[in-house]
């Protein structure tokens, strides 16, 4: 049913059951919000979105108030503006005010609100927040002093990721956000996905930076510094420099990385191809030999830790493959070091990831060979942008270059890893070849692309009908795992990504992207796949060469040693 509502003296149509905020946004109007999260149940706690409704004594929150027929709304009356202004002034009253030093300077919702509301003097001064930094985690730094208690991190952690590592602690003016027993993120159930950073309006949450170590090693003449970048980086980095979402700047990025001083530039999509060789072989092996099914992907380190905590009875279902980041790291310090004649201890291996959990993964003790880490430092997309700016590189003026051979050459199957469903699709393409000896007629696997939280499909591979499921957001993964535990047996292969939509929406990506931007990033990845000549990992000539010259065959002895791992049960606190 349609209503007519009147907003600032303009007639608009609204649908029964939608909130004032929905109706406004659908009609291209806006009111500021802070605690509001699209798609989640409104809490109405921050009061930023208040509007004046004729006949109502108090201001109402647009995010939680349903529209009624004939409702007369004023979104920017002086009463409304004063009220919003006061809220922001109160938020600022105990804020540390160190914007110039803050990670989010220039990209902060609190800063923007106070700018938009024209706050030009300190009218209310309160006692400054004084909380300790939580630097315990390998991935995420929390600064509760900058927190304005909007609760978005708490909600994303609980409702999207099903982790609930953090919660409001205490009461009233002493409320802050913390882990159970104030132990810090490191000892909590936090899986390091970084989605809390993505929703944080201020600088209260950020990644643990690896920039300083990286710079030190770049300046060390005795070190060979190599860098790899994840499939999604080339389609998101551009946004940090003002390009519109979905621009692929891989060539420019290669050039920028060389200017910064990296000795070798490699593409993690190459090792994504390698992951597919191992993982597809593992799937085929499990299907043929009656191994544990369904097999679940293990590329996402947040999902791996989540499984180690919450789905311990399914650890055997996880593929034993290391993630592409770790595979690249292992190959760089073995095969590459050997062929180039470089001492692995003198290699400093950096990766650029869309992800904060990769920082945790990199320091896992399983991810080493003879005491040498596969990967030494992990930068997020945001950190790479900072590094590029630090070196004064104008990426608008660079000529595209290609990555280094042989670990910089990929098939497009490795590239689509960046989107939810991509690992599945790439694995199916190769599994099809391994089982039938023939390539798929159409490479696109129907039903596994898109941003939906859960996708399921049936894929015909020769005589075999394979049931596949793709989930993103760990809450969705949990629901699926419960179904499997309760006896569901029509699924053979599952892809899990912690971040909704996959790595293109990872916790290390540029902050502030909306769904449209994420869709644009995804579209670009699939466009690349569409246009590429080599669409299957097993046809990547350098992958073939790597097996011929070094690894032998997938799941072979050397692969086992370098490319596979194991998991540990973790106590949840």
């Amino acid at each position, binding site marked *: 049913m349609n209503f007519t509502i009147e907003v600032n003296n303009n007639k608009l149509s609204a649908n029964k059951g939608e909130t004032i905020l929905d109706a406004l946004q659908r009609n291209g109007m806006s009111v500021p919000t802070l605690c509001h999260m699209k798609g989640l149940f409104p809490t109405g706690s921050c009061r930023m979105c208040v509007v004046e409704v004729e006949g109502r004594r108090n201001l109402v929150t647009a995010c939680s108030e349903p529209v009624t027929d004939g409702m007369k709304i004023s979104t920017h009356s002086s009463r409304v503006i004063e009220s919003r202004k006061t809220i922001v002034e109160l938020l600022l009253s105990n804020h540390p005010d160190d914007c110039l030093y803050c990670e989010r300077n220039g990209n902060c919702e609190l800063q923007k609100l106070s700018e938009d509301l024209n706050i030009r003097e300190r009218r209310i001064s309160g006692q400054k927040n004084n909380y300790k930094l939580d630097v315990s985690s390998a991935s995420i730094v929390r600064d509760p002093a900058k927190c304005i208690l909007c609760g978005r991190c708490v909600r994303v952690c609980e409702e999207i990721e099903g*982790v*609930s590592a953090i*919660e409001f602690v205490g009461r009233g003016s002493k409320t802050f956000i913390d882990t*159970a027993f104030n132990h810090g993120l490191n000892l*909590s*159930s936090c899986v390091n996905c970084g989605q809390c950073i993505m929703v944080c309006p201020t600088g209260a949450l950020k990644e643990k930076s690896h920039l300083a170590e990286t710079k030190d090693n770049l300046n060390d003449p005795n070190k060979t510094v190599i860098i790899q970048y994840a499939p999604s980086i080339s389609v998101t980095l551009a946004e940090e420099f003002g390009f519109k979402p979905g621009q692929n700047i891989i060539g420019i990025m290669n050039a920028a990385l060389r200017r910064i001083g990296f000795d070798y530039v490699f593409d993690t999509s190459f090792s994504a191809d390698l992951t597919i060789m191992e993982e597809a072989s593992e799937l085929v092996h499990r299907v043929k030999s009656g191994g544990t099914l369904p097999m679940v992907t293990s590329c996402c380190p947040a999902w791996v830790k989540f499984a180690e905590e919450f789905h311990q009875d399914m650890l055997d279902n996880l593929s034993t493959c290391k993630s592409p980041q770790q595979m690249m790291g292992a190959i760089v310090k073995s095969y590459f070091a050997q062929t180039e004649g470089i001492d692995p201890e003198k290699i400093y291996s950096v990766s650029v990831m869309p992800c904060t959990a990769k920082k945790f993964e990199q320091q896992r003790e399983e991810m080493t060979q003879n005491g040498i880490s596969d990967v030494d430092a992990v930068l997020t997309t945001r950190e790479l942008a900072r590094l590029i700016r630090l070196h004064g590189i104008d990426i608008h003026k660079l000529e595209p270059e290609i990555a280094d051979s042989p670990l910089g050459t990929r098939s497009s199957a490795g590239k689509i890893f960046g989107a939810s469903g991509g690992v599945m699709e790439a694995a199916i393409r190769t599994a099809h070849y391994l089982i039938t000896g023939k390539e798929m007629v159409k490479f696109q696997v129907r039903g596994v692309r898109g941003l939906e939280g859960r996708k399921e499909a049936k894929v015909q591979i020769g005589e075999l009908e394979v049931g596949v499921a793709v989930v993103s957001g760990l809450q969705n993964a949990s629901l699926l795992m419960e179904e499997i535990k309760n006896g569901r047996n029509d699924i053979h292969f599952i892809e899990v990504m912690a971040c909704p939509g996959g790595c293109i929406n990872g916790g290390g990506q540029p902050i502030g992207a909306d769904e449209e931007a994420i869709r644009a990033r995804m579209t670009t990845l699939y466009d690349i796949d569409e246009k590429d000549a080599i669409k299957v990992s097993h046809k990547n000539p350098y992958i073939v060469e790597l097996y011929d010259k070094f690894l032998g065959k997938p799941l072979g002895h050397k692969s086992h040693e370098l490319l596979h791992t194991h998991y540990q049960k973790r106590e949840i606190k």
Partner: protein
Amino acid sequence: MRSEIQDILDKYPSAGHDSLIPILQQVQEHLGFLSEESVVEVGKFLKMPTSKIFGVATFYNQFRFTQPGKYHVQVCRGTACHVLGSATVLDEIEKNLKVKAGMTTKDKLFSLEVVACIGACGLAPVISINGEFHAKVNSESIKTIFEAYRNREVVS
């Protein structure tokens, strides 16, 4: 091994999240405080994340997370006591015991808690030690009071 709080949990065979507070109250009554282990166990029992339980428990003044001392000191910070200087009293006691409110002394002898009003406004400022009221306290009398409790220990 049967845990210390299993008897309490057994009383709630089909408990939902709404049973959280009564369970926590009974656990605290039994243990004297909410230990980490007990909170984790209650979380598993109710299928609730530990962080959520910690959030709820820190919201209420009644829950404590450290083992109470042999003598549990409650300092009234109600209106009447406040007017008559309970802030200074609390300050003095914190200095005397060398702990902050909510903590227990290293020798496990005293624990310190701030309460809203213990209903003895006529005796303000008042403190209660294991239920024993000490009326109209001040910096001087506090020293004597705590000295007396410490001396009891030496004798016994």
